[in-house]
């Protein structure tokens, strides 16, 4: 009986050590995407990896930005009035780094309407002067924070649209590899991973540029004539086997990992994760955004992907939320209700001397469990021995 109970206890500890990875998408949701402040928060929250995007400027500098245009996240239209293309947008590749440095970055808006895309996030009208950063600065931020905190986090660099950059005679991948080389970041054991949607570009990085860095294959829903690579092939068993020679993981749109019905309910799991695991590839679906899932549905979503779909990590705008959920689920007993693992929300009080509700510390909870288990066992043993009198 006691062994049975102890077994569950150790199972909990083991689960705690092997939780899925948490990848902070563009840093975190709470500050304008991809800014140094947003990346810093992801690091502080404990995200295992910080995901960033790179595009090229006119003078071949690697700029940390998600779109190939500037109108979604900067004040470009206020600073430059006649540099837009015929579609009305201002493209990163039409500007030098020096010009891009004078822009301020803000929370994402729809460029046509100026309406904030995610209303609950940082106010896009705020005057706080965030700035675009370069890949060099981002690398230095990671290394500097790892050094200062003693915590080794990693950078997941998405190369945006290599095929688009080729039209300008630029090999963005080559420039990324060269920049990383300059910081001695070259090995699979270094805290850098590269990903892109262009699967052939990953082959090029591995076999032509001879990089030893870890690579992830981004995948989305295949659209003939639109998609740069044949994702229908690459997510088949044969395609995954093919990929496993070159990359270390898949980063698929979450709709390729599970099947949803018309109402958005999960009705099953696809074979993608099974095949990926068969060929020793990890699976990191994107993007888990809490503000798109009301109520407790986000928690249920994460639990499904973790325990049923069995993915290896989550690409999320809310790394703190998922980390908390992953810690909460790893509680000892199998019959518990969620109240046991509830965290207390921190709410500031108005008086200075009032103290704050806190979240529970996991390791100390474990000691408490052990102590009470032993008392339970002793009590049960004593009861049993009485029966023999």
């Amino acid at each position: 009986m006691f062994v049975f109970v102890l077994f569950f206890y150790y199972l909990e500890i083991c689960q705690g050590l092997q939780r899925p990875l948490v990848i902070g998408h563009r840093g975190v949701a709470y500050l304008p995407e991809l800014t140094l402040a947003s990346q810093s928060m992801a690091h502080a929250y404990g995200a295992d990896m910080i995901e960033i995007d790179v595009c090229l400027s006119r003078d071949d500098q690697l700029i940390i930005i998600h779109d190939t245009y500037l109108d979604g996240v900067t004040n470009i239209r206020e600073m430059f009035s006649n540099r837009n293309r015929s579609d009305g947008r201002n493209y990163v590749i039409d500007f030098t780094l020096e010009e891009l440095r004078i822009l301020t970055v803000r929370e994402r808006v729809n460029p046509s309407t100026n309406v904030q895309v995610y209303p609950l996030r940082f106010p896009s009208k705020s005057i706080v002067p965030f700035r675009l950063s370069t890949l060099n600065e981002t690398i230095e931020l990671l290394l500097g924070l790892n050094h200062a905190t003693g915590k080794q986090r990693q950078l997941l660099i998405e190369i945006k649209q290599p095929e688009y950059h080729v039209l300008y005679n630029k090999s963005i991948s080559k420039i990324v590899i060269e920049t990383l080389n300059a910081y001695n970041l070259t090995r699979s054991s270094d805290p850098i991973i590269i990903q892109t949607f262009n699967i052939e570009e990953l082959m090029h990085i591995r076999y032509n540029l001879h990089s030893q860095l870890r690579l992830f294959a981004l995948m989305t829903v295949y659209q003939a004539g639109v998609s740069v690579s044949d994702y229908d092939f690459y997510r088949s068993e044969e395609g995954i086997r093919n990929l496993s020679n070159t990359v270390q993981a898949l980063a698929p749109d979450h709709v390729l990992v599970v099947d949803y019905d018309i109402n958005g309910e999960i009705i099953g799991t696809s074979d993608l994760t099974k095949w990926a695991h068969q060929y020793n590839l990890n699976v990191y679906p994107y993007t888990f955004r809490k503000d798109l899932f009301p109520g407790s549905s986000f928690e249920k979503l994460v639990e499904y992907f973790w325990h049923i779909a069995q993915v290896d990590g989550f690409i999320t705008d809310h790394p703190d939320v998922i980390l908390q959920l992953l810690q909460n689920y790893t509680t000892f007993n199998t019959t518990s209700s969620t109240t046991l693992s509830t965290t207390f929300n921190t709410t500031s009080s108005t008086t200075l001397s009032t103290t704050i509700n806190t979240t529970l510390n996991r390791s100390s909870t474990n000691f408490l469990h052990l102590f009470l288990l032993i008392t339970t066992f002793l009590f049960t043993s004593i009861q049993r021995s009485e029966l023999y009198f």
Partner: protein
Amino acid sequence: MFCYMLNIHLILIFIVNICQGIERPLVIGHRGSAYLPELTLESQSIAHAYQADMVEIDVCLTRDNQLIVIHDLYLNAVSNVKDIYPNRSRSDGYHYVIDFDLNELRNLTIHERIIPFTNTQVYPARFPSSSSIPFHLATLNETIELLLGLSHSTNQQYQLLIEIKNPEYHSQYNTSISSILISTLQAYNLTESHHPIVIQTFHIEDLLYIRENLNSRLRLIALLTWNHLNESSSNFDFYRSEEGLQKLKTFVQAIAPNMELLVNFAADGSIINVTNLTVLAHKYNLAVYPWTFRHDTYKGNFEQLINFFHRTVQVDGFITSQPDIVIELLEKKI
């Protein structure tokens, strides 16, 4: 039988967790936190991510009366001012904030603190001061907007503890930095004791001025240190006495003393005994927030230090450069 015992076990854990989870002292991130160059917006952001209840910042005035978030009255320890404005130093070799306009200060980049005119980093274990990342000086307005925006987006309110640096020095330039501060806060409708703003300074008479002449209702904290350090003209010997604390009680909510005013330390960093300052302050309902708990420079056992101030001295909060470490220690169950 087993299920019955298991349920008792669970209920007991639940109750104990609730009791232990309810209260811990406040944790105040000193200049944001230790992990990024002090007082930058990035440093403030990660203090919030580390769950600090308050972020402590310092303000000084520029030549054009703008409030800049910086600790020193001069720029040489944290910026590249001597490269950008080589001819603007005073005769002592330092470049003073008050000699520059805001738009000039915007051209500077900020780095981790060094000993001025050397390349020596003051805290070697921290962010590399030689990094090429262009951090910038923030204004108070930007800091307030970061507070409001971040509290909104994370749905977790934190508070700003604003230290007014050397009001008497600023008076020499015919400016009342306190008045400018109160006006700036008013522009953001930050005026009441329940708003997430607290003000502190070493010049106690300025706190009285803020309370009685400027009629502010914001919470105020009296910074306390030794007279001989000349932080201000205030008589800290008096304000530390029972009579002084009684007087302080009429216009401030708390005291923020150097931690060495609360305990007596031995040379090796261990604690000899407790002074009566905390007990006296509590007698007059003043909260006590000592500074500064620095994990990377404390010579003794940091956990024991925090524990002692928590359980024995019974302070109401900690001003620390490593809010994450202090929070973890305070939440650790014995």
